[in-house]
């Protein structure tokens, strides 16, 4: 039992040490910095973001108006139908 515990302890220590080495290796992997020749390629263009933002506002509002009108039309048609049934019953 004692030898099993000892082996497990050694195995655990090995895993931690190996993991630590992997983390350290990953952190120190880059050895040099290479300058970028085409600097503009890294810049995030702002104009598409502005167009997407304004486009989204327009689409969202138009879609909401369309859905609202559809819901209103459906309810008012149903109301007219039920009102007609009630009037016939009387």
């Amino acid at each position, binding site marked *: 039992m004692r030898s099993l515990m000892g082996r497990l302890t050694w195995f655990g220590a090995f895993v931690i040490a190996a993991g630590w080495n992997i983390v350290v290796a990953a952190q120190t992997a880059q050895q040099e910095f290479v300058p970028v020749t085409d600097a503009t390629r890294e810049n995030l263009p702002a104009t598409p*973001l*502005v167009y*997407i933002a304004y486009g*989204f*506002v*327009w689409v*969202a*509002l138009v879609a909401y108006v369309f859905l*609202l009108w559809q819901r*209103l039309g459906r309810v008012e048609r149903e109301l007219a139908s039920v009102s007609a049934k009630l009037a016939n019953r009387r």
Partner: protein
Amino acid sequence: MRVANRLVPLLLVVAALMYIRAPFMIQAAPLESVMGVVQKIFYFHVPSAMMTFLAAFVCGIASATYLWNRSKFADHVAVSAAELAVVFGLIVLVTGPLWARKAWGVWWQWDVRLTMTLVMWMIFVAYLLLRRFGGAGSEILAAAVGVFGTALVPFVYISVNYWRTIHPNTNVLKSLPAEMADPFRWAIFAFLLFFTALLLVRIRLESSRAVLEEAYAALED
């Protein structure tokens, strides 16, 4: 309500014309020195946020009125305003990250203003879910949720002045130069007209639904 129904097409036409003119005014406005072109999202982002706050206030006041006197009309106004708070809040939560991506380099920051805005929006989504799936009697609980949602509005507004954040603070609006203030005011007015028209139509929908439910009940008797 008849006057309101006649007013809606007029409000929609004027708002649509203002929305068509707005991009030209915004394009003519000067670029901001630090953020450049992406700052132009501000002209629709901030008015949307203002309409979200307005919708939240209308919902809160109507909800409190409903809790006070059980007025059906107040309940209809509260539901309608909550839905508009969700619609305009969604616009704020989509246009904001598009602006942030360029200005801050990230889509989202878990700072006080952004997080509180998201929480407030989620409260109004919860309000609508409660009304949709809560069953009979959920109006009272939903009204309480609406009041709590509204209570967040002042905190969302002042959060940028009292906590450390990278979001621009409220002084930005007071210090706007005239060339930026004019298109901004124009956009606010367009949003306000559109908001009023949508609120009136939405209240009409809610009132018609209530009449329909009563008509079905009368038909079953």
